[in-house]
Structures are given as C-alpha cells and as structure tokens.
C-alpha cells in the first residue's frame, strides 16, 4: 500500500539524490556536509533542500515521512523538518513535534502535546533520532519519536498533492526563519500507492482469449477518453464523488467494522488473484459484501446517482465507443453476484 517516493541519504557531499524509483532529487542551498557523520548541516536561514514537484507528489492521499536528524537547539518559533507546498509538513516548536496536512484553509494537525498518547515526549537535543509523521490517507494521523507512538489524532481530509513550490527539506516554504537548527542524515517519504487498485486488477490470471477481450476493450476505452476529454472528466468527477463518499462513510465506522470490511476485501483479493472469479466462493463473497454494506448503511442499491448514471449523455456518448466485455464470461458471473437479485419488473398482462 505504501510506495516510497523519496529517499535521500546525504552521504555524497551536498548532493541530494533520491534512491526511490521516482528520482525525487533535490537541489541543496547553503548546507554543509558533516565531518563526523553522514548528513548535512543547516547553518543558516538560506539552508534548504528543494525537491521540485514531480509526478509522485501530485497524488498523495496519505503520506508517511521519516526524518533521521540531530537537533542542535530550540529557537523561538518553528523549525521545519519538511514542508510540501499546501500539502503536508513536519516542524518543531521547542521540543514539541507537529505534523500537518492541507493548506491554510483546510489544515489539520497533530502534535506531541495536545494529542499525546500517554505522556509528553520531548524531542531530544544533541543526538540522532528518527521522527515520523504518518497520515494513513483514511482516518488517522500519528507522530512517532524513535518509532514509539507519541501522538495520534483522527483526520477528515486526505492529503492534497503538493503545490508548485514543491517540497522543502530543512526549512519552511516562503520563509527563511524556520530553518532547522541541526543536521539531517536521511529523509524517506512514502505515499499511498495510487496504483494499488491497478496492481490488483491486473493480478488476475488470464487466458489469451480473455486477455484479448480486455486489450480490445482498453484500446477502445483509451480512444474514447482521448476523443471526449470533457465527458471523461465529468464522469470521473461523478465517480470520484461516489468513491470518496463511500470512503468517508467507511472511515466514520468503528475500527471493528473497518477491520471486517478489510477482511472481506482480503478474501476478494485472494480469489481474484487465484482466478476464481466465477467460483461459488466468489459469488458467496460478493453477496455477503453487498449485504454487509447495506446492513451497515454504506450502500444503497436504490442510490439515485448510480441509477441515473446510465441516462447521462456523457455516459451514453462514451459507451457507444466501447468494445463489449461480454467476451469475459467469468466476469459476467461475478457482476451478477454483485448486482444481487432484484425483483423482476412485472410485464403488463395481456388483456
């Protein structure tokens, strides 16, 4: 679920090279290599490492940041460990660690005093420590000091993508006052893997005929999207609204319900990966999921937005250009199970 999008370890002079596959390289300003340890020293207001906003920073949802560092002193005001433009950040105020998400208007934050788990744990001075901020992209934020949970807090919003100023390490964005009084050895950033669903979807064993069925379908879909970008966007927004609505509703449930949902989904993934798509187990599971969602109020089969979607002109336009998927008979079985067994519409009697 987590995808590493940035891993700096400052052991080659002032070079801020990223070891993740995303090559989130940074440009360093006013920093000095340490002589006694791997890492960079941030000696003054201009000190910073700037990571430009590239593809992975645009789609975050959830984030996990680990900074290995040594704090030299507590100045008055904030000292920033990392800041993503309008998106996320970690900073210190004296010995209190803060993590936040969102921009000025939507910001939610967690800190090691107000949200402490047991007792306040000050961030220590003068020794190497690891500070972690995690937003799980769903319902919780947390801070860890040397891998020990220090604070946690529920969260409503997902993490937005980083703005045009990208990400700054060791200083704030748009300020020179918040530079880090200390040294950073390494920074690691993960995001919620946006391709997780795609990964699962493509993990199904396929025979050549079904693969060709999907190849043809995906070709036609790509073509239709390219030719009708406005309609595609409009429908995508509608669906994103549905998906986000579901995820928010689920996030409001207690942890027991969330765990139960996760368990059902795990079962689904196992059957999907095993190619048991039209199996009795899968049909039973689909029916069970459907019933569970209805029982928990997470799904309404009579949802107007869903029911009316087929009549949407954009939907009709795109649909006409798609290759049929009836060549995947296993899928047909699965979908019937998901659709349930609604009452048949009565035919008018012949008089």
């Amino acid at each position: 679920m987590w995808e590493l999008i940035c891993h700096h370890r400052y052991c080659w002079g002032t070079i801020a090279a990223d070891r993740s596959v995303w090559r989130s390289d940074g440009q360093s300003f006013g920093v000095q290599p340490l002589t006694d340890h791997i890492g960079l020293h941030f000696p003054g207001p201009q000190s910073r490492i700037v990571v430009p906003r590239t593809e992975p920073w645009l789609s975050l949802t959830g984030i996990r940041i680990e900074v290995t560092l040594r704090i030299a002193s507590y100045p008055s005001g904030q000292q920033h460990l990392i800041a993503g433009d309008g998106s996320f950040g970690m900073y210190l105020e004296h010995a209190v660690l803060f993590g936040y998400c969102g921009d000025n208007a939507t910001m939610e934050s967690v800190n090691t005093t107000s949200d402490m788990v047991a007792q306040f744990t000050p961030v220590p001075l003068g020794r190497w420590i690891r500070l972690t901020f995690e937003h799980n992209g769903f319902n919780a934020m947390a801070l860890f000091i040397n891998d020990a949970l220090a604070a946690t807090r529920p969260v409503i919003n997902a993490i937005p993508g980083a703005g045009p100023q990208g990400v700054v390490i060791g200083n704030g964005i748009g300020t020179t006052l918040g530079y880090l009084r200390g040294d950073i050895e390494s920074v690691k950033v993960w995001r919620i893997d946006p391709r997780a669903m795609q990964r699962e979807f493509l993990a199904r064993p396929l025979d050549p005929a079904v693969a060709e069925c999907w190849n043809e379908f995906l070709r036609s879909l790509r073509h239709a999207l390219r030719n009708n970008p406005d309609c595609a966007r409009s429908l995508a927004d509608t669906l994103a609204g549905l998906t986000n609505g579901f995820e928010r509703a689920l996030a409001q449930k207690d942890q027991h319900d969330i765990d139960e949902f996760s368990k059902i989904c795990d079962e689904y993934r196992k059957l999907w990966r095993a190619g048991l798509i039209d199996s009795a187990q899968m049909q039973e599971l689909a029916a069970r999921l459907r019933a569970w969602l209805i029982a928990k109020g997470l799904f309404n089969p009579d949802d107007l937005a869903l029911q009316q979607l087929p009549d949407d002109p954009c939907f009709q336009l795109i649909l006409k250009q798609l290759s049929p998927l009836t060549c995947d008979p296993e899928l047909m079985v699965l979908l019937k199970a998901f659709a349930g067994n609604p009452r048949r519409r009565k035919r008018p009697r012949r008089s």
Partner: protein
Amino acid sequence: MAAPKPEEIALIRQFEPILFFAPGERFFPSDAKRYVERCSLWDAKDPSPPDPKNPFATADTWSQVIPADTIVVAADGIGSGDTFLGSGFLTPPSGGERFLSLFGWRDPDDTVPSPNFYANVESIAQAYEHGALKDSRFWYHAEFFSTDRLKLLFATVLAAGGLDFSALLKPAENKPPVLRNPALICYYLFFPAHEEGLPDCNNVPQAQLFGNYAGDWACVALVLDRPTLTLPYRPQYIGLTNRNIGVVKQPDGSEVRVGMRVLPWEAVLATGLDHPRLSVAKGSHAIYHKGEVPEPVAPFTVDDFARNSCGLLQEGASLPMLPPAGAGADLASVGIGWLKTVDLGGLANALFPWAGGIAGGLAMVAGYLWSIAEVQPPPLPQPVPPPLPPAPGPITDTVATGGNGLVIHPHGVLPTGVNPANAIEWPTAGHTSPTNGRKYDPYVDRDATVMWPDDPLFPGFKGRWGPRVENDPSLRRSGMLFPSFWRMCFDALVRSDPLGAAPVQVLIDASEGTPIGNATNNAGLAAAYDGDLGKTWENSPTGDSPDGVYIGKHFPTAYRISGIWIWLSSDLGFNSGNDPTAARRNFTIYGKNGADPAGPRDGETLYVSHDHQDVLPDGLLPDIAGFFVAILAGFDTTDTHDRVWVTLDNEQGDGLSVFTQVGWVKTI
C-alpha cells in the same frame, strides 16, 4: 576524444573483467562495429493521426534508408557503394525513429501472433554461432574518461537540470572531497540480442519472448581515483548494469532499458587482484559479481504490471487514465473506478436482459460494488512502514555456478578452477581488415567512429541498435538506444552508500589466512581454498569424525563473518553413502578468537542451517554432486572472530564428508 593514450590503454587492460557466462547462453559480447556494418538502417514514421500511447504501432510507415552491408561508421573506411553513417544518418528524423536491423523480424508462427512483433533473434543467433559474424564475438569496447573530460560532462548534466556531480570533487570544511582526481573506464558490452521470457508462464507461448529484442548493451564501469596526479590510479567503485524490468518509457519521453548499481570495489574484488570476476545472467545479460546469488530483480522505474498477465494484457500495462483534475486527484484509483463502474453500463443488457429499463442501473450497482471490493482501508498508523505491496511476479536471473559455462578473461589470466576448454581471452589489440582496410579496435575513439551518442561534444548514432517492432508501447521488444553509461554510473554512485556508510559483504580472498579443521584426508584442508570448484571427492578435503567434519580458516585479523559459500564435490557431493539423493545434513558455523578450536564444536555459534529453512529445504545440506550454496544472511554478526569454521553433522560416523571448496564472506 581521440584514441586513448597508451597509459589509458594500460589501465583498461589492467582492470579487464573476467566474465562468467551461464551454460546455454547464446549471445556474447561482440564487436558492435562489425554488427553495424552488416545491418540495414531504417526509419519509422508515425501513422496519421499518431497514437501517443502506442507510437509506430504498425510497420506500414517504416522504410529502409541504407541497405544491408553498406553502412560504415568511420570516415576512412568508405568504399564504393558504402554510406557513411555520419553523413546525416545519426539522428532520427523529426517525429520519427531510426533503427538498425540485422535480420529483420521473426516470421509469425504458433507463438508469434503477427509479423513484425519480434526481432529475428534466431537468425542473429545463427549468424553469431555459425555464420559470418562468429569471429566478431568476445569483444568489448572500452572507453577512458579523464578527470578533465568528466568535469566537462558533469557540467552538461548540471546544465540540463541533473545532479551536480562536481560536488564530489569539492572539499568541504575539514573534509576532503569524495573523489580527488577521478577517472572512469567503461567496458561497453554489445550483445547482438537479448532473450528474456517470463517465469511461471508456461501456458503462454509468447511469454517466453516477453522481453526479446535485438541490439543489447551492457556495461562494466570502474570509477578510479588517485590522491595526486603522480600517484597511480586505484579503482574505488564498480558499476554493473542490469536491464530494467520496470516501465521503460518515462513521462519525459526518455527510455530506461537498463540501470546500473554501483558497489565499492572491495565488495567485488579480493585485495591484491585487478580483474573483477563477474557473472553475466543468461539471456538478460545482467551483471553480478561472481558468487553473488541473484535476488529477485528490482525495477529501476515503477513496476510494469504487464508481467502480471504473462504479457497478455499489453494494454493493461498503462490503463487509460483520465485528464488531470489538478493536484491531489487520485487519478489511478479514479481511473479504475471509472473503468469498472461506467464501462459496465455497456454490459447492462448482456447481464440483465430481463431487467428492461433498470438494467443500466443494475450494471452500475454491480460495477460500483466491484470497485468497492478493491478498496483497501489502511491500518492505523504504524511505527514502521508496512511491507511494500506485492509487485508483479518476481524475476530472478540465472548465472553460472562455478566455471560451468563459457568464461572470457584477460590474456594470460585463466581463472583458477576454469577448464581452459571453456575459456576465451579478450582481444589484446585491434586489427585491420585485409579486404577493406577498416580498423577494428576495442578502444573507443570518438574522433574516428560515429557509433557513440552519449557525449554532446561528439556526434554519435542516436537510433535503435535493433529493429523497432510493432505494437510495442512499452518498448520491451524494440532494439535499445545506446545508454549514457558514464552518466548512469555517477547517477548510481550518488544513490548508493559509500564504503563504510553501510555494511558491505566482501568475499575474503581464498589465499588469506591458514586452513583449519579435521577434514585432513584425501587432498587435505588446503584443497578447500584452491579455487578449483569442480574437483571430485577424491581430490577434496575429507574427514570421518562422528563429532562432525569441519573445515575453516584462521585469519590474521578478526573479521565480522556474515556469509559462506559451499561447494560439494563434482562426483559424489559430500558422499554420505547409500542413498545420496535422500541424504541431507545439518551444518553449523562457529567462530572463536585467540586459539584454534579443540574440536568441531569448540566455538561460538554463528549460524545453524536448521534455523534457516528458507535457505535450504528443511535447512539441510543436500548430498548432490556439484551442489553449491551461498548463504549471505542469518549470521550472528555481533562479534568479530579470527577463527571461523563450518561443521557438517556426521553422527553415525559412517562415512566421509567433504566440502570441496569453501568461501568466507565478511562484512566491512
């Protein structure tokens, strides 16, 4: 860059690699110049309108530009009817591609769905095994980069928005520079073709051709340095290439077909030797240091999901995405939800023909629930990151174990234990063709030839080294472009740990220390360190103690021992007697300081095979002739030891036990 100077050639020769190939390998490093001369040159243009997701999808718009056997790459070798590649043919036409073709494309058959889908690798193999290009094999192209030239090249990288490699040369306060007077030697290895099928896809014939293509480049790069200009160079780091199994085509249009990992020189080579011993993986030509057990290949870019479907779902490698909605939009997830929910509307009547007007709504419900089933609510925040999501099926390379495949080595440096019949020497010099006077030189001279494209100061061929193939949006089956290996090396260097910054496992040279143990029968203890991996049981050290048979080393200094390589005799394994295939035994590795062990168990336990059943079945050593295992994890590395040994159980004392060869690995 003119021809290398004699002292540069001397360095190139001094550090020539020894390459160990796996049995069954069909393609070996060959002279790229002779390859080009036999090729034809082609242009590919896009149909109109182009499909940006799948350019050059058909061969309809491809055309031959220079016929076969008429291309020359050096201005001084042009004969009648020849065409100099440097006369306007180095750069692809605007909006198009240019590629070399030796034997074109494979004909359709049961495994190939269409013509022009795959390069004709079989014909290339024939030409190199039996035909006109046979004598051009076993060749490298080596290039020396001086400090001054590297500085110039670093400046071009920085100007293009890349990393500032020149920071490696700058001292910091109280800290010397990482490199003082660096140089780089690149041994470019040209393989006429690349063969890479997918494992566990036996029912999908074309999966065996998943990553096959013509024109494959690999590289061994050495970063040298010297404290002053008058002192000799010493290697500091070595770069080894591996192909990229991730997504090849990058958003900026560039291609990542291969990547490089850089290791400290000490991790690859025992002290006192100059020629790195390297294994070349079968088909893929990924390079490992000798004895390294390949881990599942890691992608250099994001995962390529096409492997999940054995390559059948080519379109699935990049599912249709939606127009960007701005920062923060979870495009991929929305894309999948879109795919599942909206598109299933099209199935409404097929799914629910009886449902009349409500069929569309039912299909929406089905698709919506389908997409919900793949929602993954994350766990609450954790102190450590959860494991990475499962990637597409793992791919693990096959490398030679011992000297059982062909070995290419420097002149007069036959590696110990290698059968001379399997060994071939690198060329010692270039030669001139008696028929056309063309020169063939293993040392890169950018003034003389136009093959090399990766230095902005010199013109070079920017096309593909093998045919473009149809319907290859992922660029796995088309010939590759010549990568910028020098840049790749420094790029990989600064993304790795310097020596001392992270533990590195190093094979201790077999000549270091004194053998110890009770396996003194037959050839005796020293035979376990003679480098001969293929010895028979009679020529190996053996013992018969019921307390266990052990063999080890007394080192002059204490090391943190973290691994062992074990070879069994080539004819009888460890010779357990009646039922060798069923016999398996536990072994234990011990360490001690200050005095030799009094017996097989007189030491601190560092590793017990029983405790690591993921390494060997049941954690037991199988009695298989020629068996080899490298164990590089699971050791107790808390302390250092100057004596270390491995004891093989022999409770019945009913037979003799033997390790024909042992290698010790330390962590530095």
